[in-house]
């Protein structure tokens, strides 16, 4: 028998591309097939890239023909793409996943399905447990549109796993990731020279280093476990300490004004519009328990919560606490031309 045949849905995302890069170096992998509507973000040597939309029923014919034994869904979108309606998020995340699962049912060769999901399913709850375990999903109402999408998607996935007990179905619940060169709204927020925070709130955060995020996805692709697994660094760090480590100046804003402030200032400074989940995350924070990832999935992240921030500071050239030249450049950018 040959090596593993792995299909990555969402090869055009950073996670899909990074996973493919790692799998290409893995001798246990025979072939890698990537599908997406957009091309990969890096040159891939032995990955076969197919252009296809996971939302279309074409997937149901395409997937069986690849003969893949593992499907990795890395195409879940965490935040709205600028210029596209927020509804398209629902289409990609829920309808797309549904089509993929339907395609799996017609593929006799598929043995494992891994979804790169989100810890947003737990919400950001002031009264919640400080560390959510995998069994605590939906213990609070799903408050935002994104949370409801993730909830719906996980519901379909659980159903699918129940009906196909011969397959190993693994749902990875990721905490937000940060890392060098990353352009997610959260990392851009943390890179602002002057960072608005919510007055009187200091949330606990667990941001996973992007190397560890890819490492966990690689590990789960090669030897998945059944059910949900939280992917998060050990420990937690408060937003205020993270910003100090990054050498950023905090500007506390009363929390009812934080959303509008971010929409205005953040947009100008290129931090993007933080959507509802982000606002709650930066008010109440969220911690998850990563015992299952450490013990059952057998993945040990290289960075803990503080380490991930320190590394981000190192690579993003944070650490400088020089206020005066920065202020000028901010004013310039505020007054300056659109992005």
């Amino acid at each position: 028998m040959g090596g593993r045949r792995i299909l990555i849905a969402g090869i055009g995302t950073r996670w899909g591309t990074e996973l493919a890069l790692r799998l290409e170096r893995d001798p246990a992998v025979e072939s890698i097939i990537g599908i997406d509507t957009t091309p990969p973000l890096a040159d891939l040597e032995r990955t076969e890239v197919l252009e296809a939309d996971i939302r279309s029923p074409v997937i149901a014919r395409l997937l069986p023909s690849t003969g893949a034994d593992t499907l990795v869904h890395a195409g879940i979108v965490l935040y709205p793409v600028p210029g596209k309606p927020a509804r398209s998020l629902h289409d990609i995340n829920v309808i797309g996943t549904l089509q993929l699962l339907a395609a799996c049912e017609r593929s006799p060769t598929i043995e494992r399905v891994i979804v790169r999901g989100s810890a947003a399913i737990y919400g950001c709850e002031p009264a919640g447990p400080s560390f959510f375990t995998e069994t605590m999903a939906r213990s609070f109402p799903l408050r935002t549109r994104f949370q409801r999408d993730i909830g719906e998607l996980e519901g379909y996935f659980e159903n699918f796993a129940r009906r196909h007990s011969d397959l190993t179905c693994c749902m990875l619940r990721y905490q937000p990731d940060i890392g060098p060169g990353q352009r997610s709204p959260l990392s851009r927020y943390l890179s602002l020279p002057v960072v608005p925070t919510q007055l009187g709130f200091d949330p606990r955060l667990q941001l996973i280093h992007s190397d560890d995020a890819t490492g966990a996805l690689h590990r789960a692709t090669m030897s998945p476990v059944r059910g949900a697994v939280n992917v998060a660094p050990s420990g937690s760090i408060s937003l205020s300490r993270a910003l100090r480590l990054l050498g950023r100046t905090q500007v506390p804003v009363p929390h009812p004004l934080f959303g509008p402030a971010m929409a205005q200032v953040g947009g100008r400074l290129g931090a993007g519009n933080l959507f509802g989940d982000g606002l709650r995350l930066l008010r109440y924070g969220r911690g998850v328990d990563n015992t299952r990832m450490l013990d059952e999935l057998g993945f040990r992240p290289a960075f803990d919560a503080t380490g991930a921030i320190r590394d981000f500071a190192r690579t993003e050239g944070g650490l400088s606490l020089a206020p005066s030249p920065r202020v000028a450049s901010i004013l310039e950018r505020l007054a300056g031309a659109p992005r």
Partner: protein
Amino acid sequence: MSGPPPVGSTVEMGSRFLRGFRSAVDGGLDPLAAVEAASTDLPKSLRDSVERMARRMRGDYHEDEWGFDEEFAEAAYPFFEFLYDRWWRVEATGVENVPAHGRAMVVSNHAGALFPFDASMITGAIMKEHPLPRWPRFMVLDWAFELPFLSAFMRKVGGVPASPFNATRILEQDGVMMVFPEGVKGTGKPFAERYRLQRFGRGGFVEIALRTGSPIVPVAVVGSEEIYPMIGNSSLLAKAVGAPFAPVTPTFPWLGPLGLIPLPSKWRIEFCDPIDVSGLGPEAAEDRRLVFELSEQVRETIQEKLYENLVKRGSAFV
């Protein structure tokens, strides 16, 4: 190295510091490093606090996974020490009943309508009077974590949202967990019912102690009921701000912020003999009858000690 710092007038010292700072900034150091560089001429105590401030500004301090910040707690300590020693003249007995090592669950009565200070005073008793002091963690009403300032402060000094999962995790990490089984029913009761223990929920705290094999240390706190005598409850106000209850005391809300000053009652805190439940095994947590019996035993112990200490205390304020 050099001798003791030269003793000059404060003005001279200040100007030397500023000159040092100026030249350090001109030398290309960032402001924090410049402050540190300039502080070498300052007396030791000042230099230490400058260094600590700079270190904190750089984020170079420890926080545990709960957000507890020991340096912050130590900085807030003198205020609570003042309340402990001067304001409430706390007399603590039996502190050594809190084990010096390993997990323990401290169970106490709960009172103080506007701001329940009992957790901080029990912490004070352990930190001041225990031969091997360590910071206990305490459960805080969930609602407090929705509020600005209070949520951040509570977490930094060792508070965690009142969730059984949090209590279990802290005990599994061999910490001291302080719980108030009466919850809001204890803090929100009228002054006329002071020192009458309310229902202990469904005995969830006993289940946690059984599952984690933690000894239970009942604690009776006398004095906390008089700090904000609750003579009324404005359900209208409570609803308006989403609070579980809105207390009306002789001074609050009539005197505005002044009404937040707690009355200087006389406090007594008694730590009772620990109840060792580790022999019963974790499966005993499923035994409803046992759980209720233990819960009732703890409740009666605290109630008895409350009455005893009330008699010992005598007058409430002198």
